[in-house]
């Protein structure tokens, strides 16, 4: 009896696996690959509309589940095929469905609306799907979980990745080459030569001369005059002797000079710096002789410690 029921069900299922409904000139079908699947298997459900009229046919809206227990895994777009001199149009949509629960599932007919009219529609035949579980042999021993399968070494894979890497490196190199070659400085126009930076003593002497020409103390700007002399001298000492004279106070500068210059230069530097400190910070107004003496001392210091030019170098310069 059991066997009879099963055979009957299979016969119905096979007949029902290709079902369709024709209304006038609109024919709709829903087809399953098979009516029997193992739990978790994926099968195709093809929805097809053959339309020989100019009516618009609307596909049913199917979301992620068809009925409870039957899930839509993948959904294609709707394909359109024109046949027989463009009079017949076939629309197809393929759905990949699956189920994770064993049992029998009866899918109700899919309804296609014609011209959007809910009263005017075409329907497919209902579908049956049987989902079976994997048969378990209880009498046999329990087996261990299988080990992971080892993937065979594939030289092609290695060559593919190394090749892509090399290609990218070469490409990057070419791009960098072009960028860097573009940044190269343009050649200096012939006829112009780059000016050699002036030595510190020449800069200092030029600045002292400019200061002298300004005649600041003669116009009563004594503080400004001594501030500038002190600044020129400290700039020169910094450039010539290589210590941070601009950031040091008079005492610190004097202790730096102790080991670097002779006593005469030390004495003159001290005179200038102390006098300028008095003029700058104590509203002191030195005598005209002292103002001139500071300038003369500054020129003497610059000339005393400037680098000595050898005769050969002089000739070369000439």
């Amino acid at each position, binding site marked *: 009896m059991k066997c009879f029921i099963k055979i009957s069900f299979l016969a119905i299922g096979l007949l029902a696996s290709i079902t369709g409904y024709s209304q006038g000139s609109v024919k709709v079908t829903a087809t399953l690959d098979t009516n029997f699947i193992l739990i978790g298997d994926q099968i195709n459900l093809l929805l097809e509309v053959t339309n020989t009229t100019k009516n618009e046919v609307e596909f049913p809206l199917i979301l992620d589940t068809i009925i409870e227990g039957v899930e839509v895994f993948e959904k294609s777009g709707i394909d359109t095929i024109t046949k027989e001199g463009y009079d017949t149009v076939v629309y197809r949509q393929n759905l990949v469905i699956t189920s994770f629960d064993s049992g029998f599932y009866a899918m109700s007919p899919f309804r296609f609306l014609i011209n959007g009219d809910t009263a005017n529609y075409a329907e497919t035949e209902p579908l049956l799907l049987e989902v079976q579980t994997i048969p378990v042999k209880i009498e046999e021993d329990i087996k261990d979980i299988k080990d992971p399968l080892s993937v065979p070494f594939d030289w092609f894979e290695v060559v593919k990745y190394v090749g892509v890497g090399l290609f990218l490196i070469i490409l990057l190199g070419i791009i960098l080459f072009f960028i860097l070659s573009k940044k190269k400085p343009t050649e200096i126009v012939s006829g112009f030569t780059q000016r050699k930076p002036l030595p510190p003593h020449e800069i200092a002497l030029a600045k002292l001369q400019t200061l002298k020409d300004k005649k600041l103390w003669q116009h009563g700007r004594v503080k400004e005059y001594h*501030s500038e002399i002190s600044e020129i001298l400290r700039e020169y000492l910094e450039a010539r002797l290589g210590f*941070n004279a*601009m*950031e*040091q*106070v*008079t*005492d610190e500068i004097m202790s730096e000079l102790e080991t670097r210059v002779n006593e005469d230069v030390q004495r003159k530097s001290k005179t200038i710096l102390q006098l300028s*400190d008095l003029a*700058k*910070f*104590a*509203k*002191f107004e030195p005598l005209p002789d002292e103002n001139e003496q500071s300038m003369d001392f500054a020129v003497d210091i610059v000339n005393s410690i400037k680098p000595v030019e050898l005769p050969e170098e002089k000739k070369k310069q000439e």
Partner: protein
Amino acid sequence: MDIKEINEKIQKESEFVDLLNLELDKVIIGQKYMVERLLVGLLSNGHILLEGVPGLAKTLAIKSLSDCIHADFSRIQFTPDLLPADLVGTQIYNQKTHEFTVRQGPIFANFVLADEINRAPAKVQSALLEAMQERQVTIGDKTFKLPEPFLVLATQNPIEQEGTYPLPEAQVDRFLLKVVIGYPKKEEEQKIIRLNVEGEFPKIEKIIQPEVILNARKAVREVYMDEKIEKYIIDIVFATRFPGEYKLDKLVPLIGFGGSPRASISLAMASKAYAFITRRGYVIPEDVRAVCYDVLRHRIGITYEAEAENVTSEDIISEILNAVEVP
């Protein structure tokens, strides 16, 4: 006032400095630096935080200074169980008169030595610091002015930090100077041994009246400070806040916070006082540099990154002084 007049006035007003130094030299061997800073604090009307390991004559120095001046001295040993009332005073019930009478605390003195200030809890520290700032104390419903001159010298021990209450940054800022005291030189220590082994300590005479100090304070305010020096001070303090603007980008991650405007005021006042004790009527950049470390070391907050790299606030100040142009 003319600079010559200021100079003459300063020369006259600062005569006591040499006398004071001579008197202090009788008992304090070496520690010139500390004595000089004590005078700067005294003349700038600021308070001093002394930091040094035990046995460096911190207490002796302040005691001797007060002995030289006709002034009161009190010493408060800060402990974890000290209460604000132990410091400022309290009201006591008189059973005879059935009235509350005020008993003033040890803070009512010209010179107050707050020994190991970081051993007392925050409420006592803030009571002291409030009194330092306001120069007055309120007990019950009565407010009492503190005597003039009023100078607080707080000591701090850099070792044994367990069970201490470090002073918060806002409180530390109220000290004009934070002086770090080092060990004496070999020959100085030899003299210290001899003096102590003989056991005959010279007695310090009271040679200065408090009015002399008050007049000297007025004279300090008159010391001439040129605009260039003011700008130099501002540059130094700004460099602690925005080192990037002074080409000191490497200090940016090391400084948590820089000096406050109070730091600028303190640096200016301390520079003037330093010029005064060197008997000059005007400030020069040397004066600013001389007090710069003591004024700024407790006002610059260093970051964890600086601590990890063993960078101290002194290192930061050195970098700043080497980068800021002298006028």
